């Protein structure tokens, strides 16, 4: 018979039911994805709302990325649920005292907002392909255009008003959605590791840095793959954004961690055993050291020395990769760490992730890859790069 559960090893005294860890690696992936959504949307808004020109090359790309990520956000949750077919119960009869009851509505609203925003942003391209393209792509774009083929100046002006308005609404929506994920953890009084008022802002800032990092990385990779020059001013702007938010993220996380230790409430001995034992590598070495301090110092060096050219791009990419890893580790240390410290305050449980199975590492990895696959497919239809458009390509092809 298939094993229905995996008992976790433990030390000290833990409640018997705690020997099966409730939230697996999938619940690590879930806030990671929502964070990437919030972060990439923020980058996109820096151009669309705040009009910062240096972010133009990545603004549409970041917008499309936010949508592809957001579509995948429910996946880890649905994989985790005991009855995914009942997931809509939370929306049909939301239990309003639950910190999680509004998630379905908030996520749906935000997904819809991203869909509409992306539609407006890419409408000119879609219409042009619908008019001038060939083959199945033309038919896809005809459907996607929703019959709205007007590209006159008046229509474009109207579109821009919508893009601006949606981006303005999108900022609190994106940040709110992710801050709210932090609240899901921070509001639980049963676990000392989670129970903190600082959890929402900590989640929020780490979201912004992870999203910015992903945009840096994908912008450079796609530019190299397409053999087009990388806008240095854009990279510089992203580096500044990452640097600033990274400092705040580190500061808040440091304050949260320090308060937890300083408050030293019941069970602190066990927490200290955990912090100075199992947590050393994932938290101090990987998350704080390698993933946060190394990129912070690198980015500081880049900014102070005014590094340019390939060195800037290479160092920015390396820092972005490390920050992405650090935020993943942060999610892990929060979600898994909270469950590894027993509610008894007298023992520790060890989470041993399985490789295969519905809640295994393979499933979690697949969920993380899905947005990239969606992004690849989306760029087959529309072109999010600033310097060219699908229509221009089509015209070029027609001319040749």
């Amino acid at each position, binding site marked *: 018979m298939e094993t*229905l*559960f995996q*008992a976790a090893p*433990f030390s*000290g*005294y*833990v*409640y*018997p*039911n*705690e*020997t*099966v860890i*409730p*939230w697996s690696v999938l619940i690590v992936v879930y806030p990671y994805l929502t964070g990437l959504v919030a972060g990439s949307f923020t980058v996109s808004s820096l151009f669309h709302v705040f009009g910062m020109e240096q972010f133009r090359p990545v603004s549409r790309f970041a917008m499309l990325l936010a949508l592809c990520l957001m579509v995948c956000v429910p996946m880890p*949750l649905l994989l*985790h*649920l*005991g*009855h*995914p077919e*009942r*997931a809509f*119960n*939370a929306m*049909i*009869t*939301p*239990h309003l*005292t*639950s*910190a*999680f*009851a509004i*998630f379905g509505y908030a996520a749906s609203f935000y997904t819809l907002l991203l869909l509409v925003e992306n539609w407006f942003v890419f409408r000119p391209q879609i219409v042009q392909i619908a008019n001038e393209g060939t083959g199945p792509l033309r038919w896809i774009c005809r459907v996607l255009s929703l019959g709205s083929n007007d590209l006159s100046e008046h229509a474009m002006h109207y579109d821009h008003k919508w893009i601006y308005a949606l981006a303005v609404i999108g900022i609190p929506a994106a940040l709110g959605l992710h801050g709210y994920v932090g609240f*899901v953890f921070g509001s*639980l*009084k*049963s*676990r000392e590791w989670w129970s903190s008022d600082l959890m929402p802002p900590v989640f929020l800032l780490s979201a912004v840095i992870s999203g910015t990092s992903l945009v840096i990385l994908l912008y450079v990779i796609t530019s190299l793959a397409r053999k087009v020059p990388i806008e240095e001013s854009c990279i510089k702007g992203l580096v500044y954004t990452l640097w600033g938010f990274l400092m705040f993220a580190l500061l808040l996380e440091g304050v949260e961690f320090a308060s937890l230790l300083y408050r030293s409430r019941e069970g602190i001995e066990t927490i200290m055993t955990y912090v100075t034992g199992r947590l050393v590598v994932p938290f101090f070495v990987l998350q704080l050291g390698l993933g946060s301090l190394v990129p912070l110092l690198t980015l500081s060096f880049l900014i102070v020395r005014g590094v340019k050219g390939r060195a800037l791009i290479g160092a920015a990419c390396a820092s972005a990769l490390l920050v992405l890893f650090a935020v993943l580790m942060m999610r892990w240390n929060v979600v898994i760490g909270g*469950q590894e410290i*027993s*509610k*008894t*305050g*007298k023992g520790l449980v060890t989470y041993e992730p399985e490789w295969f199975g519905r809640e295994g590492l393979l499933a979690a990895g697949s969920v993380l890859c899905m947005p990239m696959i969606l992004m690849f497919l989306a760029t087959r239809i529309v072109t999010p790069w600033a310097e060219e458009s699908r229509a221009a390509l089509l015209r070029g092809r027609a001319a040749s």
Partner: protein
Amino acid sequence: MTNDTTKPEVPARRIFLRNIGRGAACAGAVAGAGLIAGAHGADTPATPASDGQSFPAPGYDWNAHRWAFAVDATKCIGCLRCVEACKKENHVALDAHHFRTWVERYAYLEGEEKPHVDSMPDPVNIQAAGSEEKYRFANRYKDAKVEKAFFVPKLCNHCTHPACVQVCPTGATYKTRDGFVLIDHKYCIGCQYCVQACPYGARFFNHAKGVTDKCTWCYHRVTRGLMPACVEVCPVQARMFGDLNDPKSVVSLFIRNNRVQVLKPETGNAPNVYYIGLDKEVV
């Protein structure tokens, strides 16, 4: 007594929604939700335990009771009959990782400040029992100098302000008027947020059903005039159950005649399992 008074509030809403699905509802039915719910007396939510046919039992008035549980930890001998009875009565998975009720052993050894605490999942106890399907406390301190040792039975506290109910996103777990915290297994989505929220570790995931599970104080028995299974089998009356509305009930007397304690009062959950004979190290 009418059916209306015996219907839990949350399921009534659900029944209302079900009726909408059947096409039986219209705009005017919104106001009459209670009537519709009342008209379907037999169409009740999930049975919480093993074999309940109707829920609650016919003729049971849930407005007339306010049940509570009492534990005299000084009497418990750690025989674990309660654990076995509960597993059998409620079809709880026969392993050392899923319990609706369990017993903890605290042992202070000579020269040590902190007690040794163990319970069913402890490998030494599993070995002593012979398998994970049987439960026994190993005689592990026979060669040690024990200064003080005692057992503490644990179960769901059916709190007045249950954190598990607060966090449930669907309302599948709810508080009844007679003082129970129950789970509608046909409505639970299995997110386990409630498992995280319970400070007592009383909830677990029922892997076979894909829903969360916990002690119901044997609601299916109580509503038929019986005692919870663990109370029934306890050979030393360490576990007691009764109606707080009845001043002569065993629990009312227990609370009146003793200086009782509850577990983790600082959580604000206002638990309804009253203890005597706890110790500062009991968690």
